[in-house]
């Protein structure tokens, strides 16, 4: 018997979503197996969009327990990268966080300005500052990387502002937001850009 975790989706009545997210692509008919490697994928592994977001006025708390005014840390002239994570997330968050860590490390060794990094927990009930501090150490996060938590209402507002809210935490999507400065739009990357791709996206923004 073949196990079909896709089938789990049905149980949580997300069958429709499945079709719309492209997991179940009825139109893409497989005409038998090819034993030789498939042709190189055209798909860059992620999508790119430009967006402006009206950010809410919220105070969050970082991994050291310090209050942080979200608008303020986003409004100075520094470039920023933002993602949404939670510490008990098994699959998507490790890949997002490890990419941030890698980008931070590589940029620190380069001539380019190092962006401010912001990872916002979408499970604030569990992810208290001390838990986030522990998490940040796992990924060897450098300085100027905020791991933020806060009141559930505040976190919800931020997710909604970035159009990154998908209800249940386990239903989240991989998204990264990059901005060159407070005056330019956000670049929204959905999917799994490689570290090299993230770096080049970033480079395009800061050294036009």
């Amino acid at each position: 018997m073949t196990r079909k975790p896709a089938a789990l989706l049905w149980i949580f009545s997300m069958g429709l979503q499945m079709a719309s997210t492209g997991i179940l692509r009825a139109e893409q008919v497989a005409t038998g197996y090819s034993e030789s490697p498939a042709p190189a994928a055209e798909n860059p592994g992620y999508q790119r969009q430009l967006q402006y977001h009206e950010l809410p006025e919220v105070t969050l708390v970082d991994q050291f327990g310090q209050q942080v005014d979200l608008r303020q840390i986003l409004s100075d002239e520094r470039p920023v990268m933002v993602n949404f994570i939670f510490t008990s997330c098994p699959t998507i968050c490790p890949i997002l966080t490890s990419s941030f860590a890698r980008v931070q490390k590589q940029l620190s060794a380069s001539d380019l300005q190092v962006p401010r990094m912001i990872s916002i927990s979408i499970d604030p009930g569990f992810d208290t500052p001390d838990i986030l501090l522990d998490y940040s150490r796992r990924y060897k996060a450098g300085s100027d990387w905020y791991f933020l938590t806060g009141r559930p209402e505040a976190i919800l507002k931020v997710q909604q502002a970035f159009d990154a809210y998908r209800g249940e935490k386990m239903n989240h999507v991989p998204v990264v937001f990059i901005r060159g400065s407070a005056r330019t739009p956000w670049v929204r990357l959905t999917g799994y850009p490689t570290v090299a791709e993230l770096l080049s996206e970033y480079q395009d923004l800061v050294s036009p």
Partner: protein
Amino acid sequence: MWWSNKIPELSLPWRSGFLGLLSCLLLPVAGYSVALEKAGGYTDQQILAYGKAIYRKGLLPDGTAVKASFGTGAPVPEQAVACANCHKRSGLGAVEGNLIVWPVNAASLFSPRRTTGAWRASVKDDGPGSRSRWHLPVKFDSQAARPAYTQETLARMIRTGVDASGRHTSMAMPRYDLSDEHMAMLMQYLAQLSPDQEFSPGVNKQSIRFGVVVDSRVSQRKKEAMLKVLKSVTKAHNTQTRPHIRRAAKGPFYKTEAYGAYRQIELVVWELTGEEESWRAQLEDYQEESPVFALLGGISATTWQPIHEFCEEHEIPAILPLTREPVISDSDWYTLYFSKEHYQEGDVTAQYLARSGQPPAGAIVQLYRPGTPGENSARGFSNRWSAMGREQGKLENVVLDVPVSTLPWEKILGDMAPGPLLVWLEGEDLRQFLTVMQSLHPGEEGLGDIYLSADALKATGKTLSQKMRRKVMLVSSHSPQGEFVPREQALKRWLKVQGIDYSEPEIQAKMYFIGWILPGALKHMRGEYYRDYFMESFEMMGDQYHSIASYPRLSFSPGQRYLAKGGYILRLLPGRSSGYRKVVDWQVEP
């Protein structure tokens, strides 16, 4: 080719001169046309143990972490590298967002995947000449279809992320740097993981048996309150039997799939008598006599530890027992608890004191008697307090080994000039403490707030003097009664329909909650009745808000085994009433 420079050099391990390492013995994998080479120089048990450590913990035989990087090029941190994090302990995979983490047990890997989302029968019922109605029409075949893996293609998949059809799989599947020997160990482990159609004990074609552990010291009234609700819940489930069997036999394939997986629930009560030390042996006897798939609910007057350990060792799930003394562990796996109970009270107090503005004036004094639940409260406090970076020096632990009344109270309260006093006492100890405080007449200034467990105070039956009322903060790991009236009413209505008296609100609410989530977990298994998969089914349930009156919400998360993540701290209002103000309302404001 966006990926071309990211694929590590293929080492073609199965073709080059590695055979010295591996014995030439080929192990056929039951039911599949694949043979695996076996790592040489080890016993089968060693191989499986090493394979298991790689799979579950991401650790190599020498204890170092497996190395891997994501398709993005970033290294996978040690805590995320174990296969089980993503593919789950059962190997049956999971779904996160729109990402499918495919199953990796033998039944899945060594047979072709033709479709996405469609059920297939076991190999035995499938194949040429079979009349089963299991397949989707071919036009629904998905892109993720692939032929069965061979030893070579599987090793390539794990090392490079290229699957048996040549597809470059998701960036999220790490590319592993494993030697031939370690790869062989891992494959042996996968080959026996969640074996096809060999379900865990306690399941047959018609039914699935659950045990309900009952500590004989618990009052008849409480036992009955628990059992009646559980029985009602399972009875409701079992009335579906006839229609489900009919639909499974006659329906189209997707109904066969859903209904064919259906099982009746059978409950057996395991009553434990005598000393706690003797429980373990009693449990072993019960399990040998008529094995259960998992434990459901259950109640203990004191600790759950012997049962917890029994379950951990035999890898038997225990779902939401009623106990005020759960085992606190962040690595144990098989018991799912409502709450850390006393530990949670200490934890929430630490979060509150650490975040409530000014640091306390004096030292924090923590009072508990070893071997009582209060020790857990103290542990909960200390652990969170130090995790939040507070200096340990400011925390004084007073560990009682004498009667409370004989302590040098003038000194404790005077010289140590305590800030908050955390009194994790109960029963006679707490009664004595309250009496001592009455006679000391603590001055308004001299003494900080006194933190008590709300449940412990209630159990003493004592009322507090006005002076004490002003000083006391009550800590609770669950909602005060009356907090969620509509939810209580929903439960009452349901009980009424079932013909059950509303006698034990907390017990009944909790068992009702089990009834609420159990069908989802059973359905989620889709007929794959493996104990590990059952545990994992609960992890997918996210936040539950409305189905229980004892907590504002319960949160399920991967790997987490305590659903309640918050607590209450109540400041009593002056006057004779039981009025209070919530200083902490479930979540400490970060």
